[in-house]
């Protein structure tokens, strides 16, 4: 007899098969890749449907408990948020288009078995949620919470393959824009699943406290405006990290990577040749931007040596990677120098790029403060093996930790380098941009519009 557990195991097996195919093989045609993306959407839709199945009997069982409490239990709130978020992406048409065709890919087979598991569950309950079988009568809200937690793991497993799927689709010849539209980065869904997996419910907040940032509006037709939006959101998010959060390190690392990208693409936009080795000795103009990108790279390297002991509960990854993608679209690395004057479209891109450079300096200020707080409160950890020998030899406690292969609180000597680099990248690069501006303005005809404002640029 096929049980609920059997069907879930089959689902996991199909997802594993899909993952292995992505890892080992490529799509042969764009059509095959698009079919796989459609099936992937179908699986997400099946996850949403299954979440609903796990939710409704649990809600009925909790009515007595929750009637006099404010709001729903956190795990149910997270489940409802997840369902709403998935359905906003996959659409609400029923049956879902992926259900109509014969399943061919592992993703489609996974949806099929997951939907079957949901149907099996539904047969144990009546329309009002009352149990129809002895097994259902023994199930408690804890059982459904455990089911939701398991579904959270499955969802994160599936979401982990969005990026490889996008990569394989591009390899197969699907236009990048089309891939970006269908697989835009579903990191926010992964965030929501963490609420399902959490063993210790998060504290309930007052109504106003739960107001976060306005959800991103995707402005696919205006990448410059989209970049501006993303950068502003990132500045806000990094400012919030300066608070009491202890898991900020992963975000600091991600933003250091974006710092490299912003300055490299800005340098390319203003004519730097990034294929050659860096120009020695010059710190002005586009070469100043290259120098700044190099500083962000060293900061990225310095931050990467610290251990992130637990998964962060919030992530800026989605916006950071979307911004990096937009930069590649607006100012490709092989952009090459264009003769002034530039077109109005180029000027608009220039504004967005200038704004991104400026915002990165603001972000560096916030992140420098966050790093300083982490260092002062001893929340930075480093493998003792990674510490310099001379430092370890001076401190017996570190020497013992090194011998025992332990992770230790990072000593000042280890945090000092990153702190100094933050000071460096937090300096506003106005000088660098002004030099570019002067170089571009010189050959322009009288009265030509200025390419770059000489003052600090703010995003529109």
């Amino acid at each position, binding site marked *: 007899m096929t049980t609920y557990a059997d069907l879930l195991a089959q689902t*996991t097996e199909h*997802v*594993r098969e899909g*993952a*292995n195919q*992505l*890892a*080992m093989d490529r799509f042969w045609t764009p059509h095959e890749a698009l079919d796989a993306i459609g099936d992937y959407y179908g699986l997400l839709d099946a996850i949403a449907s299954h979440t609903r199945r796990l939710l409704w009997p649990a809600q009925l069982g909790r009515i007595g408990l929750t009637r006099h409490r404010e709001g729903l239990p956190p795990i149910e709130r997270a489940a409802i948020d997840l369902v709403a978020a998935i359905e906003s992406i996959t659409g609400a048409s029923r049956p879902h288009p992926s259900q109509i065709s014969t399943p061919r890919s592992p993703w489609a087979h996974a949806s099929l078995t997951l939907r079957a598991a949901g149907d099996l569950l539904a047969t144990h309950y009546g329309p009002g949620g009352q149990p129809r079988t002895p097994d259902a009568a023994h199930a408690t809200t804890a059982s459904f919470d455990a089911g939701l937690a*398991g579904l959270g*793991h*499955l969802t*994160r*497993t599936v979401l*982990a*393959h*969005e*990026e*490889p799927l996008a*990569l394989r689709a*591009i*390899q197969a010849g699907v236009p990048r824009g089309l891939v970006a539209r269908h697989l835009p980065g579903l990191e926010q869904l992964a965030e929501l699943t963490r609420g399902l*997996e959490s063993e210790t419910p998060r504290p309930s907040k007052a109504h106003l406290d739960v107001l976060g940032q306005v959800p991103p509006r995707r402005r696919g037709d205006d990448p410059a405006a989209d970049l501006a939006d993303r950068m502003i959101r990132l500045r806000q998010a990094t400012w919030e990290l300066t608070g009491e959060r202890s898991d900020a390190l*992963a975000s600091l*690392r*991600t933003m250091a*990577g974006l710092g*490299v*990208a912003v300055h*490299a*693409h800005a340098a*390319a936009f203003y004519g*730097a040749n*990034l*294929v*050659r*080795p*860096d120009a020695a000795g010059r710190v002005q103009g586009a070469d100043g931007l*290259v120098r700044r*990108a*190099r500083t962000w*790279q*060293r900061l*990225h*390297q310095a931050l*990467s040596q610290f*251990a*992130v*002991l*637990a*998964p962060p509960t919030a992530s800026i990854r989605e916006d950071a990677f979307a911004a*990096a993608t937009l930069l590649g679209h607006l100012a490709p*690395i*092989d952009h090459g120098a264009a003769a002034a004057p530039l077109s109005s479209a180029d000027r608009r891109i220039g504004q967005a790029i200038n704004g991104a450079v400026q915002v990165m300096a603001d972000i560096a200020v916030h992140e420098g403060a966050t790093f300083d707080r982490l260092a002062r409160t001893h929340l930075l950890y480093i*493998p003792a*093996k*990674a510490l310099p020998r001379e430092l370890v030899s001076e401190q017996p406690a570190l020497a013992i930790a090194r011998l*025992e*292969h*332990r*992770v230790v609180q990072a000593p000042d000597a280890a945090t000092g380098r990153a702190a100094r680099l933050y000071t460096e990248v937090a300096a506003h690069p106005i000088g660098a941009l002004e030099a570019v501006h002067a170089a571009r303005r010189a050959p322009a005809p009288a009265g030509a519009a200025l390419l770059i404002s000489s003052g600090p640029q703010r995003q529109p």
Partner: protein
Amino acid sequence: MTPAWTHTAETLARDAGQGWPAIWTLTQAAAIGALNLAITVPLGVGVSVSYAAMDFREAQDEVEWAHPEVRAGTTASVFGPLRPEDSGQARDALDRLAALALTHAATLAETETNLAAQAALSRVMARLITGRAKLTGRWS
């Protein structure tokens, strides 16, 4: 030739062992190597190598969160200085490390029954796949 990097990579690949510790050793080495490489090569290439380093480091995080004890069991890898003209060979060496880590993860995924560990493996594999693509530039 880049004898130092190639030799280090070969030694790591040979001595990595099996299972989670092997994935960690190889992924950590790829992350450290990519961070070093990104600073050495011209910035036009260094940007995508930095992205690759981020992916490898995130894969390493995932392994450490699933099995914190792996940090203690394996020797940290050290890549020596790199001449710019050797960067192509160094990139190939790092790609082989990541490919081997991916193979270990895929093998482990065949037998891992714990759902949370399975999810962690999936995330590790996803990061390794994208990291390799960014490192080698083989997006198309």
